[in-house]
């Protein structure tokens, strides 16, 4: 009896063991199936329609513009579409790779940095919103990103969804699971010679340029062009005379920019006139500079001025000397020169930055007459506060033309005045239409206003 009980107990144990093993095997099998079959069902969305790829107009090449009509699923109020994924290939049937993403409700995309003259083909994938939770960790995502760098165009949710669908994460783009458009192409990118978007700027620029040319012609023809007096210029000669009477030098600072800055050019032009007066009065000029090319140009200018004043022997290269390109190193040296030499007059004509107030305040402290001119809006307040006369913005260029009396400069200044007049006229007309549109609410007047504004929105 005992043996019988033992045999039954053993049999029961064996049965339990077999059942347990069977359950475990079934679990393992179901796990394997989970890896091989999709866990997440990706919703099949309608593809985009009227998908077209063409060379981007009005560009310098290397860009292709893609346009499409939204997927039907994107037009619904709570649409299922999260984005449109752009695929590109140089082969119409294979090797498509993700190159970019357009947001849902967007119906265009510009593919950039392309090789000119190469045929490209495109597909657009209507990509669904992921309804579940992100299950992949960053540690799981990173190797996938390394394997497929193009996935960086997608976000972590998208990658998680794709991974849940299939371990071969890119298969979804090939096996017709998503709404994939027809292939558009071949299309080549090409550079255009003319950018039609800048036509308005061309017309405005040409108008001003033609005015300048006409006025230069008039000035060369001997016609006297009127320019109003500029306050600071009247003081220049007095300031030079004061330095002569006091037997002190004149300090000229041409700013800290190079000769590629038009303000430096204007400053050097005024220097030519000042240097001529200095040569005539036999006064000294000291010009520390922070750019080597400015030094060369300034030496040429002063040399020429001394020559035209009949005093070539009085010219010396030491009048213009290089300090350093470093902004505050230059300022430290100029301040030192100011307090040691105590010039009677300081000119600051050119492009200035943070050094403007430091120099102008030091010049003020030594009692020098100071005349400044710059078109740097942030520095003008300092010059206005610390100097005796300030040429504000365009007055610097006008002074350059006024003093030189050259037909080219006078003509260009008069031409710019034509540009200002045109600006004033259009501002008045535009403001009148804009006000009427705001007060009456008329769509027609608003349209005219927008048209005028569009001419000046290059």
């Amino acid at each position, binding site marked *: 009896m005992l043996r019988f009980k033992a045999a039954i107990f053993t049999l029961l144990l064996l049965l339990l063991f077999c059942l347990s093993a069977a359950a475990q095997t079934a679990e393992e099998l179901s796990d394997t199936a989970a890896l091989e079959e999709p866990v997440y069902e990706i919703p099949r969305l309608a593809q985009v329609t009227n998908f077209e790829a063409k060379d981007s107009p009005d560009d310098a090449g290397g860009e292709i513009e893609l346009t499409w009509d939204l997927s039907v699923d994107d037009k619904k109020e709570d649409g299922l579409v999260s984005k449109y994924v752009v695929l590109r290939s140089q082969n119409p049937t294979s090797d498509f790779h993700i190159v970019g993403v357009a947001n849902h409700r967007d119906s265009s995309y510009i593919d950039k940095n392309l090789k000119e003259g190469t045929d490209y083909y495109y597909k657009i994938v209507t990509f669904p919103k992921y309804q579940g939770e992100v299950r992949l960790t960053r540690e799981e995502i990173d190797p996938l990103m390394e394997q497929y760098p193009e996935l960086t165009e997608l976000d972590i949710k998208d990658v998680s969804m794709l991974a849940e669908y299939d371990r071969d994460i890119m298969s979804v783009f090939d096996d017709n699971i998503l709404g994939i458009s027809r292939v558009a192409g071949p299309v080549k990118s090409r550079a255009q010679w003319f950018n039609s978007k800048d036509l308005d700027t061309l017309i405005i*620029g040409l108008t001003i340029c033609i005015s300048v040319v006409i006025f230069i012609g008039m000035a060369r023809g001997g016609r006297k062009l009127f320019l*109003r007096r500029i306050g600071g210029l009247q003081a220049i000669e007095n300031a030079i005379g004061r330095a002569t009477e006091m037997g002190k030098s004149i300090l000229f600072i041409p700013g800290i920019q190079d000769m590629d800055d038009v303000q430096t050019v204007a400053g050097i032009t005024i220097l030519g006139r000042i240097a001529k007066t200095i040569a005539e009065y036999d006064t000294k000029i000291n010009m520390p500079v922070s750019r080597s090319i400015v030094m060369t140009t300034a030496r*040429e200018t002063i040399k020429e001025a001394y020559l035209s004043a009949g005093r070539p022997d009085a010219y010396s290269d030491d009048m213009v000397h290089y300090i350093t390109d470093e902004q505050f190193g230059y300022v430290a040296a100029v301040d030192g020169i100011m307090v040691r030499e105590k010039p009677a007059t300081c000119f600051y004509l050119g492009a200035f930055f943070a050094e403007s107030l430091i120099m102008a305040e030091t010049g003020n402290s030594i009692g020098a007459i100071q005349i400044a001119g710059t078109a740097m809006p942030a520095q003008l307040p300092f010059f206005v506060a610390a100097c005796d006369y300030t040429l504000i913005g365009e007055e610097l260029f006008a002074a350059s033309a006024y003093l030189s009396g050259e037909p080219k400069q006078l003509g260009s200044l008069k031409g710019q005045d034509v540009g200002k007049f045109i600006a004033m006229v259009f501002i008045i007309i535009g403001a009148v239409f804009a006000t009427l549109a705001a007060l009456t609410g008329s769509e027609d007047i608003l349209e005219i206003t927008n048209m005028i504004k569009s001419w000046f929105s290059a």
Partner: protein
Amino acid sequence: MGSDLIGVWIAAFLTLGIMSFLYKDNPWYKFSEAIFVGLSAGYWFASLFWQSLHAKFWANWSPAVQSLFQGQFDYNLLYTGAGILGLMMLLRLIPPIGWISRWPLSVVVGGTAGLYLINYLVSNAVRQIGSTIQPVVTFPESIGWINSGGVIIGNVLVFAVLIVSLGFILFGRNTTIDLPTPTKLFFFLIALVACALGTFYSLSMPLNLTGLIIFMGVFCGLIYFFFSKEHTGFFGGAATVGTWFLMVTFGASFGYTVMSRMSLLIGRIDFLLVEWLKVVN
């Protein structure tokens, strides 16, 4: 650690040396100035050599020449032109042919003038005109009572400015508007009544006059910078109003920039107290 400490002490010594200029010019400042100027000039020389001559010229031109010897044309060979222009600059060192150095100068000046022409035209002129075209007055929709109060005060101020501006244009120092004084007075009184009515109207229905201020500022500013006509009469008055706008702008800019300069000073004081003296954590 040791070298850091020495560096901090040197920096503090030179910082205080430069700041000593606030007292007066002195040998400590002269020493610091000479160190600053000499070091920066040397640094800039090395920097320009490696960043311009080497990185932009040699690194492009040298491979192009090598490929030319291999029978291939590389567009970077065009850098030869830049190299020749650079050499021409150095011809200043040979006085008999020093005049050749003017040619590269003219290329630099002319080239950059042409390059910037469109950029400046678009950013400084064309776009500014487009931005100025806006309604001179608008009716704000459903604004709160605080905002209404602000708009009313703003309107009263704007009307006051308009009256003063008109008065200046008609009776200002440089004005030679050729009208008899009673007529000027008549115009001024009409403007005064209109502005008073406008102010009264704005109290009941606030208008947004920001557009008017912008319009006046731009228009009068443009007149100030118009050089083909003497600033007399209407032009003189409008130009004076333009000057006011400029000065108000400069005042605001002055305050703003001074505040940013204070941050530079705070940076140096911070260095002295925290890194050097370590009296503040």
